């Protein structure tokens, strides 16, 4: 019987992104036999619908919606898997990235299998998911045509040698919202020095940069200004990338030493090799594995070109083919992919879940929670007037716990026998304080943001403990888009 894997993505825009293209489409090409099907869907198309797939592979979906969907899938005994390719997790002192670390921790109890692209990435995420098997699947290479590579490479060598002109290409995303990578790697002082040195060795050179328009703003262009050889700029598209690489003698691949860059795959080098380019790797030795086929020094590269013996040439292509067959084999990768995900039993978890609403939350999450059979819980920081079945309200400096009178007997929650009160559409009873661990006092739930920041972490953690005591086995998630969470949670 055909097994079906659903790749869960954030939006349809991702369907045309590099990640999708490089990875899943190549896996699909590599899986032969037709007993495994891979389909990608944006998260919005899956939520609230019947869960018809055997496995759900979450890919770059760092939202609470994704967690709720994973929870629903897990309760129905579906396999929940994650594919992680960018290191947004190892920067434990960077609060901007707290949301990623927090998401990964929340997903940990729901996750059966994790895939990632590199060994370095595996080491980064292992501490977050100590129980989970993590499988490294490198990006496979497809459309590999050894004859074309051989012919292209030899022609490029001839042209370069006769004209003593080196056409250099740099390609890819030029910016990142969190890290200085891309154009700033290309214009790092060490790279500038190396480019300037080409002229000293008697070579003319031209650098073609194919990158996204957003990166080519004033600051990006101001960086490119520092490049000491002529630069040609082209807006990146997949077709442009192929064309630029087919025309270039050398692909320049500078890599910085920050965690984000070090966890990257070999993909850019493989893409360039596939177009018959020499590879010029500078900075972090990310492409070490490809050692016999790449250059670290321009002097060696230029003298090899002069003597018509560059590392990529028709004579070396058989070796390259053999090497890629071992490391970037699409058939192998496709099979590993399918067996890693589908080879695991996924015991359903019976646990219900609760979403604790913080300072800044959305009604969409509130509705989604109840729609998926979860409990929407109001914290004292939440000012919304929705129908929460469980409430943690601030009365003076005390936090009082109230549950709807319909819910209390269902879970056997001991409530105050006195008269109930009506809030919104529900009748509420106050929970007996000895039914849960004591809650801290709160200075003021509204109006004093600074004092609230100080108590936020402590209060939210106590609410989680209280929920676990009142509703045993429940998994809790927090819905709060405000910077409160990040600040209150500190590092980690």
């Amino acid at each position, binding site marked *: 019987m055909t097994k079906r894997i659903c790749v869960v993505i954030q939006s349809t825009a991702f369907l045309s992104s590099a990640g999708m293209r490089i990875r899943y489409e190549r896996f699909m090409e590599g899986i032969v036999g037709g007993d495994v099907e891979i389909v990608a869907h944006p998260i919005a198309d899956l939520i609230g619908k019947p869960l018809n797939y055997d496995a759900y592979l979450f890919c770059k979906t760092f939202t609470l919606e994704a967690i709720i969907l994973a929870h629903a899938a897990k309760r129905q005994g579906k396999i929940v898997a994650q594919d992680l390719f960018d290191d947004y997790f190892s920067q434990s002192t960077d609060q901007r990235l707290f949301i990623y670390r927090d998401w990964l921790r929340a997903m940990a109890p729901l996750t059966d299998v994790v895939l990632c692209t590199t060994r370095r990435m595996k080491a980064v995420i292992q501490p977050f998911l100590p129980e989970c098997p993590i499988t490294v699947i490198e990006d496979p290479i497809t459309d590999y045509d050894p004859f074309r590579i051989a012919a292209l490479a030899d022609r490029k060598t001839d042209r370069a040698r006769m004209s003593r002109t080196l056409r250099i290409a740099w390609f890819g995303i030029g910016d990142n919202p969190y890290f200085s990578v891309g154009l700033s790697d290309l214009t790092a002082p060490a790279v500038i020095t190396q480019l300037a040195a080409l002229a000293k060795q008697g070579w003319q050179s*031209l650098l073609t940069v194919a990158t996204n328009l957003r990166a080519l*703003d004033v600051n990006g*262009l101001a960086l490119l*200004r520092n490049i000491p050889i*002529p630069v040609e700029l082209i807006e990146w598209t997949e077709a442009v990338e192929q064309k630029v690489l087919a025309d270039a003698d050398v692909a320049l691949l500078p890599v910085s030493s920050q965690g984000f860059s070090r966890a990257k795959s070999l993909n850019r080098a493989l893409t360039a090799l596939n177009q018959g380019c020499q590879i010029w790797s500078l900075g972090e030795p990310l492409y070490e594995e490809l050692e016999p086929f790449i250059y670290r020094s321009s002097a060696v590269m230029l003298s090899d070109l002069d003597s018509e013996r560059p590392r990529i040439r028709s004579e070396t292509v058989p070796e390259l083919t053999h090497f890629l067959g071992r490391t970037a084999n699409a058939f192998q990768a496709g099979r590993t992919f399918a067996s890693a995900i589908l080879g695991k039993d996924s015991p359903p978890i019976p646990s219900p879940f609760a979403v604790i609403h913080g300072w800044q939350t959305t009604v969409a999450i509130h509705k989604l929670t109840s729609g998926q059979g979860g409990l929407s819980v109001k914290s004292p920081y939440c000012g919304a007037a929705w129908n929460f079945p469980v409430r943690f309200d601030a009365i003076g400096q005390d936090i009082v716990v109230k549950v709807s009178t319909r819910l209390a007997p269902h879970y056997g929650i001991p409530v105050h026998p006195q008269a109930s009160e009506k809030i919104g559409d529900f009748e509420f009873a106050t929970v007996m304080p000895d039914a849960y661990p004591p809650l801290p006092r709160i200075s003021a739930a509204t109006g004093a943001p600074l004092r609230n920041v100080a108590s936020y972490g402590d209060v939210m953690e106590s609410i989680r403990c209280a929920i676990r005591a009142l509703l045993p086995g429940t998994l809790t998630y927090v819905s709060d888009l405000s910077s409160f969470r990040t600040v209150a949670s500190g590092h980690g």
Partner: protein
Amino acid sequence: MADMSTCIAFHIDLIQDVSALRPLVRLASSSLAERILLVSPNFRALDRENFWFAQIERLASETGASILSYANEFDVFRALSRRRGICIAGSESDVRAHRGTHDLFRSMPSGFLRVTLQHGFECLGFLHNERHTASFGRNIRFAADIIVGWFDRTRLKDVSEREASKLYVAGPMMMIEDGPLPDVRAFDPYCGIICENTHSVRFSSNRTQQNFLKEVEQLGERLDAVGKRLHFRPHPAGQFLMRTKYELPTGVAVEDAPLFELNLTNYAFAISAPSTILFDFILAGVPTAIWGCGKIDASNFAGLRQIGSSDDCWRFVAESTLVREDLLSRQNAFVADLGIPRDVRDRYAGLLALSGA
């Protein structure tokens, strides 16, 4: 690949840049280098009625330059990346009003030498009115590699020490084109011009603006009574008439043609609050007075005729016809003291030669 074509680019971002750069664009017309007029999106937005863009088109066709009206810095980088040469801006510094040119200079391909001009008698980063300093401070920085000044270094008191090594003194651009010497007798007695620049930071209060307009009214009436006409010139960048819907008093005529189209020597006198236009009239041999009633800093114009009151103003108008030679010799002494180089045209020609053509 090595033979990149040479190019002289001019950057036009503010309305005033057109007049400031015009003599230089004309001077460059004999250069072998390709000449491009870069017109910024900001300029197109300011020039809503395309009046000044038409001037640019005319200048381009007269001088054989091409026009690149660009949308963002990337357009310019792409257009210039296979060229080398020099890019000259009418106005550039790190203050907000010059942001467009500053960003363009920061992101310009490295084959270009970046030059900005002192674009007025008082000019940010070169020579400040006290209001300039109060609003923007004294440490005005440039992205340009060369900053071109009008006067001797000692007169340019507001060039930051950090920028001083970039200074090249070439003189005012309006002195590039030496026309025939002005005939000081060929003027219309009593027919003068009063110039408005109330949008300037120099007008620190509404009160001062109102006083200025009252002066226009009174002078207009007095001249009208003797059958003479007062001309009123709104600043090209201020869009004063459009902005305020100001109705000119009877007997006062608007004169808003580009300055380079006017024969300045026809006027009997010129009055303005501190502004570069005073300097244009001084060079044209027209008696000039600075209006400010003590409320506007005119220290950079010390030595010239100052007007404090309405009667003062009327007396100056009479003097401009009756004792014209006295006023003019006083003005000439003021100019002689500025340390303007004698060879303005040659100095700008030398600057253009840096394009490598």
